[in-house]
């Protein structure tokens, strides 16, 4: 008997049966968190929380656009912040000429960033690996210095917008709540569109090119137009984020395009976890919160941020999404684990053994359950720490080899040259 072979992969069919993929559910959790934040803000007594939320959303859009390049395309752009600046400058310059209406400012921001992406991408995308990193950095620095020399538009000091972008002559976006939710709506739209794009024919080719370029060429795909298109799409989307960022601050300065900002965008993507779409959104949020908390502790907060990022890179490679995936792999998902644990607790109650499995949690079983993720993270960090300790021990063992005379002589010779 001939076995019927399924034409649609299980994964796709299951995804169709289940309303939402895991990535989408995590994203939904993020959107819900962000959407509820303004409702919490008054009770926490801080309108500033809304500003942080806005910035988190805007940088989430930028990080998502960078994820299209890094995660799907394998193109690590070290000049992505340039698009934030180009978008914000285009809208800001339009506004300073009295064209601050949405129907002009937003298209101007999108067109300018798309044009910049097309012009720089046409050259940058021809290169690979570290050369791509350097050339994108170079283009971003060029944009930075052009912005500093834009004397009519503030030059070094930046450009203050006369007002936020208007809609039919009305200052709708002046309302902080409306601006907040408009930004969130844009983020959701960006997430949905990028999700479709990654799974589409185009996304498949882009991912294939990252995986094995030789094979893709042998299939008849010329890499260049696909990579350039991805670069332009990502740049335009980041330009939209720049438009929002300029609106949020009612200001734009060359600092928007500084290479440090480009580095921060890469950190957001890696911190959140590349290869997923929800990861970079959480990455942007985490990064901004870290920045916020640390800058309250001390003026020299960057001294703390650096080591914190090193630790995260050491103990959480794969970022937040990587840790979540490992958790799911080991524990089989939060809901299933909690179900299993509550079954276990019920059985213990029935047999007269009261209390949770490890009953040191103040006698509250739910506390033990709630603390599970935390305990898991601590355990994971501890095991990574053990591994690091092992590496150190090996290093200490092998270090004497460095003191061998041959090596010393070699180094000495090298030194004399």
């Amino acid at each position, binding site marked *: 008997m001939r*076995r019927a*072979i*399924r*034409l*649609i*992969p*299980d*994964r*796709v069919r299951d995804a*169709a049966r289940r309303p939402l993929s895991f990535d989408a559910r995590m994203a939904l959790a993020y959107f819900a968190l962000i959407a509820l934040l303004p409702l919490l803000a008054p009770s926490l007594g801080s309108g500033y929380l809304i500003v942080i939320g806005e910035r988190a959303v805007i940088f989430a859009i930028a990080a998502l656009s960078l994820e299209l390049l890094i995660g799907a395309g394998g193109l690590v752009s070290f000049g992505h912040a340039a698009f934030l600046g180009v978008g914000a400058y285009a809208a800001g310059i339009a506004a300073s000429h009295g064209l601050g209406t949405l129907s002009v400012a937003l298209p101007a921001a999108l067109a300018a960033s798309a044009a910049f992406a097309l012009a720089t991408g046409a050259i940058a995308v021809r290169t690979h690996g570290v050369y791509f990193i350097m050339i994108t950095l170079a283009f971003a620095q060029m944009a930075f210095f052009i912005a500093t020399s834009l004397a009519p538009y503030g030059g070094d000091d930046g450009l203050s917008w006369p007002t936020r972008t208007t809609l039919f002559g009305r200052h709708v976006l002046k309302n902080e709540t409306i601006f907040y939710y408009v930004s969130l709506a844009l983020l959701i739209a960006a997430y949905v569109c990028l999700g*479709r*794009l990654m*799974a*589409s*024919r*185009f*996304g*498949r*080719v882009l*991912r*294939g090119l990252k*995986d*094995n370029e*030789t*094979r*893709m*060429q*042998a*299939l*008849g*795909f*010329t890499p260049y*137009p*696909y990579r350039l*298109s991805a670069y332009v799409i990502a740049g335009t989307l980041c330009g939209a984020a720049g438009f929002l960022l300029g609106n949020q601050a009612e200001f734009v300065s060359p600092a928007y395009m500084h290479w440090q900002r480009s580095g921060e965008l890469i950190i957001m993507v890696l911190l959140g976890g590349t290869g997923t779409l929800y990861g970079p959104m959480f990455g942007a949020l985490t990064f901004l919160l870290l920045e916020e908390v640390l800058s309250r502790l001390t003026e020299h907060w960057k001294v703390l941020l650096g080591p914190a990022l090193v630790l995260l890179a050491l103990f959480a490679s794969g970022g937040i999404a990587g840790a979540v995936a490992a958790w799911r792999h080991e524990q089989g998902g939060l809901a299933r684990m909690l179900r299993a644990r509550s079954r276990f607790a019920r059985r213990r109650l029935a047999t007269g053994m009261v209390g949770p499995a490890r009953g040191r949690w103040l006698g509250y079983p739910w506390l033990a359950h709630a603390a599970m993720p935390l305990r898991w993270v601590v355990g994971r960090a501890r095991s990574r720490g053990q591994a690091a300790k092992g590496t150190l021990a090996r290093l200490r063992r092998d270090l004497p080899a460095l003191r061998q005379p041959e090596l010393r002589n070699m180094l000495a010779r090298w030194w004399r040259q």
Partner: protein
Amino acid sequence: MTTPVLRLLDVSKSFGALRVAERLALEVLAGETHAIIGPNGAGKTSLINQISGALAPDAGRILFEDRDVTHLSMPARENLGLARSFQITQVLQRFSALENVALAAQAQAGSSFRFWRPAAAEVPLNRAAMQSLAMVELAPRAHTPAGALSHGEKRRLEIAIALAQAPKLLLLDEPMAGAGVEETRGLIGMLKGLKGRFSILLVEHDMQAVFALADRVSVLVDGRIIAAGEPQAVRANAAVRAAYLGEAA
């Protein structure tokens, strides 16, 4: 039947002092399986690379279906109907076997500048991919990531990918490379099933495979074809025996 699909006219190529092709002439006829054999370093893989477009020849012309393709890029040649497999497996490790082949079908079926519809749900692509996978007896492994397939399965996947490209000429670069005795036997049986349905240019080390599959054999030594013809005639050729089969025959 006797029209050539592929013609090489006086193709020369050298890497520094090493000559891998010297005024090389070769014809592959429609429907035939043409094997190229030769000792290590004779220039067999370089020849495949020149035909597929991965390398440019120093001199000479390459005609594919009477069209000069000497200066076309690799993707452009593949789109004309030249499909190749690689000696060192080149599959998309993170894609499933089905996706690997579906991507080859996608290259044949319209534009890939489509941004909205999920490609994995395109039934025509998956159906074409499944047919190719079935031809190499890999259908049950369709949803396995290519990186997790065994070596022999990857060799089959290479061929399935080439088949899905709707090829007018299949360039198979040592399809049995690295395969065990049992796997080789399976691969020969599978290739026999393809013989006659496609024009095939086969580069192979495995003599058993060559004599089982080829209609004609060309022997390549130091960038030159020293003998060509029916397998039996080539096997009997004294120069070939001296240069290559030597101790083995």
